[in-house]
Every structure is written in structure tokens, then in C-alpha cells.
């Protein structure tokens, strides 16, 4: 019998622990497929986040090194500067990269570090139970923005990717979503390009991926992906934000 579909080599056999409708499983798979296709499994090192994907090292079958919350870009910098011919990627959520890790991320981009950041934006802190994130939309109800996010109380949704595009050292930044099949195909292409930019030694690359969190949004998986498509993309439009590769 001919095998026509299987698990990427860059994923271990461990079943994902993610909630139904969560985008992490899809995004893990896409990253692993790209690693396989580029033939870089044995020279890739990943830096997993704190949060729901903290156990990413149980899934990716590549070398992995944890970082303190927010500091993946700095840990990846130290690693990549020592191992110039390896591929280093970080995997972070919105609270991680756009709140506690803002400084490390902007400065890594500004130095043009040859690393690739996978930025999963689901507009809440997931693991800790659905608190307000820097990317929470105005009016969006979370456990720490009761009645919905108010700009003068809670600040505005932060568009970190646009900020990173201003840094001269960033080379490729795209925002995609995994809320529909077309978006998933587009996301994979973006991840591939982001890794290629690193392989070509051009500078900092990042893919921001809008991803549903049905559990903390208190929606069905179906409603959650529709909310990504219809509401979230209005504030975080899907596009190539920067490409000077």
C-alpha cells in the first residue's frame, strides 16, 4: 500500500494536548512540515514559549531549549551567534512577545538577528485562564477586562508586527491565520519563507498567525474560527507587512 499522508519527521509521536479548535496543533504541524521540506531537522533548534505551547518540546523532534517567559528572542540570539550555521526559531504567544517580551523582540529584530519567530496571536493569555492580552480587541471580554476592553482603562490592541517592520534589521514579516484552509496554506508558505530568509542569512523574520482560542473565548470551535475571520482580521489584517528579502 502506498503511503500518501503521514506525520512530519520533525514531530514526535506524542499526541497533542491542545483544546479542540485550538490553532497550536495546526501551527506545530506546519512548522514541522517546513522543517522536513527544507531538510533542516538535524540542524534546527527551537525555543518554546511559556503558556499553552510550553510543552512544544514534547512535540517537535528537534533540539529545544526553554527560555524564561518573554526572553525567547534573547536566548535565540545567544544561541544563533554561537551556532551560525544552524537554524534557530522561537515560538511565542501574544502576551509573551507583545507584552513581557517586547523589548527583547524589537531589539533582536533591530539587530537583524538571523532567527525566525513564530508568533501565535489569539488575543488572550490562554494557559493562565483567559486574561487580557496586549492584542485583546477593544470591547473584548476577558477575565481581567470585565465588560470588555476599554482603551482608556486597558490600552489599545498592540500591533507588534507593524512595530517590528519599522526596525531596519527585520527582513520579512507576514500576518496570516489558520482559521480556514486557505489561511492554513498561506501560513505554511509564510513559515517556509521566514525560514528561508534565515537560511539565506538575510536578517530577522517573523510570521504572526491569528489563531482561535475557543476555550477562553467561550465559543464553539466553529464560532471561534469565524470570529477570527470576521472580527479579528479587521484589527489585525492579513498581509505581508514587510518583505525586503
Amino acid at each position: 500500500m502506498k503511503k500518501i499522508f503521514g506525520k512530519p519527521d520533525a514531530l514526535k509521536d506524542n499526541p497533542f494536548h491542545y483544546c479542540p479548535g485550538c490553532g497550536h496543533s495546526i501551527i506545530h504541524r506546519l512548522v514541522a512540515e517546513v522543517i522536513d521540506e527544507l531538510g533542516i531537522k538535524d540542524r534546527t533548534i527551537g525555543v518554546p514559549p511559556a503558556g499553552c505551547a510550553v510543552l512544544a518540546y514534547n512535540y517537535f523532534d528537534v533540539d529545544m531549549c526553554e527560555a524564561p517567559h518573554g526572553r525567547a528572542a534573547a536566548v535565540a540570539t545567544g544561541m544563533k551567534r554561537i551556532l551560525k550555521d544552524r537554524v534557530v526559531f522561537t515560538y511565542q504567544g501574544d502576551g509573551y512577545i507583545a507584552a513581557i517580551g517586547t523589548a527583547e523582540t524589537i531589539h533582536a529584530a533591530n539587530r537583524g538577528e538571523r532567527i525566525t519567530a513564530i508568533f501565535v496571536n489569539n488575543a488572550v493569555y490562554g494557559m493562565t485562564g483567559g486574561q487580557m492580552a496586549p492584542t485583546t480587541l477593544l470591547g473584548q471580554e476577558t477575565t481581567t477586562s470585565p465588560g470588555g476592553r476599554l482603551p482608556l482603562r486597558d490600552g489599545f490592541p498592540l500591533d507588534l508586527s507593524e512595530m517590528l517592520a519599522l526596525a531596519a534589521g527585520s527582513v520579512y514579516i507576514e500576518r496570516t491565520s489558520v482559521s480556514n484552509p486557505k489561511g492554513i496554506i498561506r501560513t505554511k508558505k509564510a513559515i517556509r519563507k521566514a525560514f528561508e530568509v534565515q537560511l539565506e542569512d538575510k536578517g530577522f523574520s517573523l510570521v504572526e498567525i491569528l489563531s482561535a482560542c475557543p476555550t477562553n473565548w467561550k465559543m464553539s470551535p466553529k464560532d471561534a474560527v469565524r470570529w477570527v475571520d470576521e472580527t479579528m482580521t479587521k484589527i489585525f489584517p492579513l498581509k505581508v507587512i514587510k518583505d525586503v528579502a
Partner: protein
Amino acid sequence: MSEKTLMRGTHVLGEAAIRAGCRAYFGYPITPQNELPEYMASAFARMDDAVFIQAESEIASINMVIGAAAAGARVMTSSSSPGISLKQEGISYLAAMELPAVIVNMMRGGPGLGNIAPAQGDYFQATRGGGHGDYRVIVFAPAYGQEIADMTRQAFDLADYYRIPVMILGDGMMGQMMEPVVFPEPIDPAKLPEKEWVVNGSKGRSSRIILSLWLDPPKEEELNWRLARKYSAITEVIPDQEMYLTDDAELVLVAYGTAARIAKGAVHRARESGMKVGLYRPKTLWPFPSKALAKLCDHVRHFMAFEMSTGQMVEDVRLAVEGRREVSFYGRPGGVVSTPEEVAAIVSSAYHGKAN
């Protein structure tokens, strides 16, 4: 360079680090230690295989240290008191992930922003772990330029051997003072033993993970006991001290680093006045050299801790003496540097049984 060279403490440390095979330095400017990152920047700019980054913060720099250590490099960062506070989270992770690194603290007056004068207020922070969780780091306290060179070499070797962060605890005065030094021969980092735990891509082997997350309490407990066993082993081997004129001493000053040099001057003055006074100088602060100090209880009647703080190391002296002899304290915090005459006067009062 086996002949004597006259260099300031910060430069001695930098040169010794490079000779120990250090090829990565990450830091953020703060006085009084800026000559060290400047030395590293200029030396590494002339080397093909070395990495220097002036990071955006102390937090970023300690995390770059984590990355470089996980990748297998001999790596160092340095700062002064407030900056070391910012690095503590990362040092806790280094301890938990069992990553080797060398961290230099050229202490200044504190708490808070304090000032830029030499002080010793970070003793507790250095010797009790400093960050969150149940861990220790090896702490060296050099007092002389030559010791800075020797201890820096030892720091890198021990960090690798035990897979532990090692701190070199100095102060602003030590960093600036110029002294003659003979450096050890340089090590070629390529010839160091292979580290079989690094994450550098899984070519020819299965993939590896370096982490500090142990969600299952028995697993976290296992890590804690493994670290505790490592710390016990270190405590058996590492403690080191200088004992100066202690053989016949009735009163012994206990002091480290710059304070020990002042104390030595006080010992000379006391001896000239006919008092049997000696100096016990811990060279390692963690582990504290308790055993050799405890032995002095056989003939010493009074131990006086002298620190550039309001009294921190004195607690370790009391723990070592275990109530058998009188332990007192004299100190000047906040960046005030005592003179040997001042300390000698305090010693004289104590020696002759007067309250001070």
C-alpha cells in the same frame, strides 16, 4: 605573557576570561564595571570566533548567556548591583537548567540606585541563590589582581565541571585598582572536553531538550535533590580561605575582598601594638569555608566580621562558630571605605574588652 603585567582589575578579569576560553560576552553598561565590557568588545573585535553583544538590558544579556551556554560556549556577563538584581531571574534558570556561565558583580552602594562607590551589600543575594527557587551559585571573592586572574580561570572550569553558574564578587575599588599580574597560559576552547548535553542540532543523534519546567512535583523534587547533592559535593571540595597570622591570634578579623585588604592593614597595626590579631579571609563565599574557621575556635576567643555593609557575612561566621566564641561585627555600608586605622581602633577596643 608569563611575565608580570600591570593592569586594572576589570581588565585582568577580561583577559583571564579570554584565556580561559570565554568566547561570548553579553552585557549592559553600568558603573563601576564598564571597563570590563569595553575590554571584551575590543578584544573580541579582533577575534573571528568570539561574540560580543551590548544588549538592550541586563535581562536580555543574561538570557543571551542562557542561549550561548546551551549552545556550548564558555560565556560571561558582568554588571554591578542593580544590574545583577535584574539578572537574577536568568541566573535561577541557569541553575535549574544546569548551564555553566560566569557572572561578575562589581558591587556598588545600595539598595536601590545607591551610588557607584565600592560596597559589599550584595553578599546575601550572591550566597543565598539570589533569584527564586532552591539553588546556589559558586561565589568567588578575589582580593588581589592575581587572584582575579586565577579565580576567573577556576570559575570557568568549575562552571563547566559542575554545570553551574559561578559568580565573581568584587567591588568598584577592586575593578579600578592596578596591580601586577601573571596570567595563566591560554586555553584553546576547541580542545575543551565535549559537552554531551548541548543543543546544537541533532545531527547523528536523537533530539535533546534543555528545560526547567517539571510540572510533576516528584520530578521537580528529583531536580531539587539532584542539585542539593551537587551542592553538597561542591561544599566538600571548593571552600577556600587565606589565614593570615591566625596561629597565635586571640582576636581574628573575618573579611573578604577589598574589606580584607583594609583588615590586613588593621592587623599589622594591631600587631605593632602587641595585640595577637589575625585575619581570616574567605576566598569562596559560597560555599563558605566554615570548617577551617571553626577549627580556630580552639585558641581564638573573639571573631570580628568586618564588611562594607551593615552585616551580612557575619551570619555565616556565627553559623561556623556555633556560639562557642564571641562574634562581633564592624562595618561601613553605602560606599564608605574604612581606613585600616579606623578598623585597628575598633579591634583594639574589642581586644581589650571594651564595648565599641
